[in-house]
């Protein structure tokens, strides 16, 4: 876990702390860190936010699922739930709503430092959203031609975005509404401290570990201001097993409950043996 909010003056990202969201040149900072142990299997890179209430009621309501499903009528006439992020200068916003408007737009890049050379680590951006979300729930508006710019004619970008939605990615199947980063952001998190999947680091071959132990540096394009509401940002690297990430809770809970049950079993067996025998011969008292 690396916290890169930059509130402390010593942090390299301190200079980016008060950058505004629409400055033309993004503020960049670099944080160096060391991995103690190597990560063997596939590594997953997350960005985490704290004190960010994605589960606030007005926030969760503020979206238009039919617009995101590619419905052409909703594209030009978004639902009322999206207010005040519904129209901008009389043009409908696509995608509308506060959730879309606050999309996370920091860019994180990972380099491995090996004897003063920075080796970039390939980050895969496909496969981070739910398959059903990407292929069924979120669809680009239909029309003739594959030109997304034409399909999104008549709409404008959300207020706090730099680029409109059809310029999120150069690849056609990750552009528009079906951009996976966008989809991951639109799935509102349950708790105020959450993490969302950012990129995947795949294991190249079975011999070498995915990420060796050693020095690494994280290049951040700091676009997303969180300081105003005392939020924090961090980057998390994690490996996943069939049970998910590191989750001590389940293990501790099972062991505790198991031992309690075992202990109770023994105690109740003793009690039953001692007192149970008197039940079978007891008459009903008058």
């Amino acid at each position, binding site marked *: 876990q690396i916290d890169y909010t930059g509130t402390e003056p010593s942090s390299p990202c301190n200079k980016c702390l008060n950058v505004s969201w629409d400055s033309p040149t993004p503020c960049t900072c670099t944080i160096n860190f060391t991995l103690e142990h190597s990560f063997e299997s*596939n590594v*997953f890179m*997350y960005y*985490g936010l704290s004190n960010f*209430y*994605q*589960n*606030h*009621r*007005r926030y*969760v309501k503020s*979206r238009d*699922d*039919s617009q995101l*499903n590619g419905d052409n009528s909703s594209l030009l006439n978004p639902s009322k739930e999206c207010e005040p992020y519904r129209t901008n200068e009389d043009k409908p916003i696509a995608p509308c709503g506060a959730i879309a408007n606050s999309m996370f737009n920091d860019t994180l890049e990972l380099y491995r430092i090996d004897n003063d050379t920075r080796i970039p680590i390939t980050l895969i951006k496909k*496969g*981070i*959203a*739910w398959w*059903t*979300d990407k292929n*069924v*729930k979120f669809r680009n508006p239909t029309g003739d031609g594959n030109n997304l710019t034409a399909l999104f004619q008549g709409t404008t970008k959300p207020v706090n975005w730099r680029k409109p939605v059809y310029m999120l990615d150069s690849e056609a199947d990750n552009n528009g509404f079906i951009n996976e980063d966008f989809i*991951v952001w639109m*799935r*509102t*998190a*349950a*708790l*105020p*401290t*959450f*993490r*969302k*999947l950012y990129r995947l680091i795949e294991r190249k071959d079975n011999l070498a570990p995915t990420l060796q132990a050693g020095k690494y540096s994280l290049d951040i394009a700091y676009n997303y201001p969180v300081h105003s509401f005392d939020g924090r940002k961090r980057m998390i690297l*994690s490996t*996943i*097993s069939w*049970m*998910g*990430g*590191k*989750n001590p*809770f*389940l293990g501790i*809970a*099972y062991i505790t*409950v198991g031992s*309690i*049950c075992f202990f*109770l079993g023994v105690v*109740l067996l003793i*009690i039953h043996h001692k*007192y*149970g025998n008197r*039940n079978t011969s*007891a008459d*009903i*008292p*008058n």
Partner: protein
Amino acid sequence: QEREELFFRALCLCHTVQVKDDDSVDGLKKNRLSRRSCIYISSSPDEVALVEGIQRLGYTYLRLKDNFMEILNRENNIEKFELLEVLSFDSVRRRMSVIVKSSTGDIFLFCKGADSSIFPRVKEGKIDQIRSRVERNAVEGLRTLCVAYKKLTAEEYSKAQKLLQNAKLALQDREKKLAEVYEKIERDFILLGATAVEDRLQEKAADTIEALQKAGIKVWVLTGDKMETAAATCYACKLFRRNTQILELTTKKIEEQSLHDVLFDLSKTVLRHSGSLTRDTFSGLSTDMQDYGLIIDGAALSLIMKPRQDGSSGNYRELFLEICRNCSAVLCCRMAPLQKAQIVKLIKLSKEHPITLAIGDGANDVSMILEAHVGIGIIGKEGRQAARNSDYAIPKFKHLKKMLLVHGHFYYVRISELVQYFFYKNVCFIFPQFLYQFFCGFSQQTLYDTAYLTLYNISFTSLPILLYGLMEQHVSADTLKREPSLYRDVAKNALLRWRAFIYWTFLGVFDAVVFFFGAYFLFENTIVTSNGQMFGNWTFGTLVFTVLVFTVTLKLALDTHYWTWINHFMIWGSLVFYIIFSLLWGGIIWPFLNYQRMYYVFMQMLSSGPAWLGIILLITVSLLPDVIKKVLCRQLWPTATERIQTKHQCLSVEQSTIFMLSQTSSSLSF
């Protein structure tokens, strides 16, 4: 000899019995009629008994035609008597009279009534003989009546008639004026004789009363009969047993000592033993404890209830109730109907506010039935008045036993469980939502999807408890009938007291906390899927909801003692329905919805290993305290009910029966 003839004629004439002519076309029936067995109808079966009895002695009452009563006497001649007046029966003066004119022109006043109301007005006749006979009859438990007559001259009669007319037509205080006139007319009788009617106890009345007493229910008998008759009846129906010490609070005693002294004596006697008695052990069946029975009559009661000028009547009532509380049975005799209601009210308002049940079969019981919490009427020979005014009507007294001990017990257990369970499951439902507010900025964001919110109480959790409320038999019906003492376990609203309610609420809160924080710690700062993708807030809510539905349903399954196929079907069916509903709800992009937030949420949740493990763990943890409590309490401090339950095989499939009792509606006409 003349008096004897008059006696028979008096009995034949002094009544309000009607003859029902059998109008059937059947030839056989007509033949029967010729043998002169008519069908008599009256509001009082006593009168019918008397008329039928006289018939056997040779005097048959035939009919009332054109104001003439016709009698067939021993020589098979028809005698006609003109019916001039009927001074009808009322329960205050306890007698009735008729004024008839015989064919010879003599005017007779025949009077029939209770001995206490006839003897004071009699001036000649074999008074002592008859009185001793009457007392002997009463001790044997027979209902006694006395018959007297007076011959009226024509002027006496016309005077009486005028008085009666005036009184009957009076516009104000008609009853008072009538009572005064009756008093004036009915005096200076010549005693003719006495009758005795055996009022047989209903079958199994003794058994029922014994069972009720074993169940801890106090039984009081309120009757209009005289003390000796009533006492004999009580011994017959086992209300007073052989070793019951009878305490008397009767008019006789009060004449000897003042009311004050009598009350104090009695309370001293009774309270001597009360220190060692606890309410629960009071079945009165153990032979080493002295058992008291109290007899009180109507006059004494009215003295107790009369408000005194110095305001000390409260003490008398309190003292009286104190005495009654320590007696195993109370007999109130010579009760007027209103006094019966008065006593019921007195008990209702006493310190412990007990629930009262009044059961009766005659019109004189109606006020008592209306006053008590539960009024039961017996549809019997005395007509339908009692049944019409009651909450429940039963054909025989013995049915009370099954009604109270089996059906009442079952319904109580079912209803108390229903109420507690409803509060419990809704606490479990809403409390996680409440806890979630702390984590969503208090913005009232719901934890569960609206479909779940709506359908929770309607479809996911409603049917199992409904079936429980209809079919649960925590102990089998036969066992309940056999062991009336099991009723004590639910006495005094035991299952709905504060303690039970707080236990259920605590359980609900504990479960809710387990659900919510279990899911919270499961989700906090980790990823629970095997492909690294995240779960959103709807998945979180669905996880909590799934654990919730399974837990509350399994809690009901743990509480069910009587498993029928319907129970199995409903409980497991509800769970299956929940799963199917969730799959369907999330499986399709529903066109009519304007949000698609639940799309595939349930399936995604099920695809995560930790979610499964978490569900199983949380269900187990939330059910654990209740299971422990049940097992511990059963082993260490079992109630009588639980002891019987352990003898019963568990999880055997039983026959499903639904008992239905319908309440009488007073608008029904018979």
